């Protein structure tokens, strides 16, 4: 006779398996305090309809990615200070280009698969509010819009996971 576990498994992909690291002048550091994270993919399509075909033909020629997130700011956090510095100085254009590393730690052990890509940092709102525990905190809502191709590689994390080193794949 089958047990319940034999016929029904439920193994959700955990939040926390996909980490976001930010390249800062001091190194590549974990972007902590992200309370909501959404990676949007906008397909770039080439659609045409030939005279001898009834329906249109669509080709996917690229995917443009955009990361939307809300970050609860922590004092003294290097990645947060770096982003806030850009807001305070009113940076724009190339000056808001940041390097993000998306690391998938679901694989098991370091080095983990990683994708490096340049993004434009676009701040949306900075709100005074409270974090989950009811403690006062500023929340930064922002977007990162891709402005380069992604480079695949591997990430070697420090033991506490706060920093990482990136090793690009030779053929990427």
């Amino acid at each position, binding site marked *: 006779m089958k047990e319940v576990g034999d016929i029904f498994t439920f193994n959700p992909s955990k*939040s926390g398996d996909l980490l976001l690291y930010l390249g800062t002048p001091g190194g590549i550091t974990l*972007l902590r*305090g992200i309370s909501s994270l959404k990676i949007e993919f906008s397909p770039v399509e080439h659609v045409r309809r030939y005279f001898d075909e009834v329906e249109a033909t669509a080709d996917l020629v690229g995917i443009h990615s955009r990361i939307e997130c809300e970050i609860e700011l922590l004092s003294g956090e290097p990645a947060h200070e770096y982003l806030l510095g850009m807001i305070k100085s009113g940076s724009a254009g190339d000056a808001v280009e940041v390097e993000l590393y998306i690391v998938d730690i679901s694989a098991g052990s370091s080095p983990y698969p990683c994708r490096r890509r340049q993004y434009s940092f676009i701040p949306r709102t900075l709100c005074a509010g409270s974090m989950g*525990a*009811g403690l006062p905190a500023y929340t930064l809502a922002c977007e990162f819009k891709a402005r380069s191709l992604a480079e695949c590689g591997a990430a070697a994390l420090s033991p506490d996971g706060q920093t990482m080193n990136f090793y690009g794949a030779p053929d990427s």
Partner: protein
Amino acid sequence: MPIYTYRTAAALLDYINDWPDRPAQARLGSYGEGLPALRLLPSSGAQVLKRYADGTVILSLPFTVSLRARGGSPIASLDALAGYIQKTGPPYLGEGLCALAVELCEPPQRTGSDVSGLAEYSLPLSLIYAISPRFE
């Protein structure tokens, strides 16, 4: 995460026992010999308040500091403990854990008594703390 709950409870005990004006040495889960006696009683489990995308979790662990005494001014003593907590800030919990706040849930109150004049007074508190994600 029972191991973390035990670690936090043990750290809280040290924290309460660092209170210079404590009427007695606090014990975890039970009262000591004699009167007055001080007990730290954590609740059975911590409640998750928030999870972050990087795996960091913020938890709330309710606990109660109770003072058993015959006579004296136990309410004033627990009030003084509340003042000490507000003045000193949250305790150190060890590696991988970070205390954010100790919140006073209610004012000290009498929670039990008997005919001999022995009474128990309690101060309900809540420890808010964060657990960092594990990578290895």
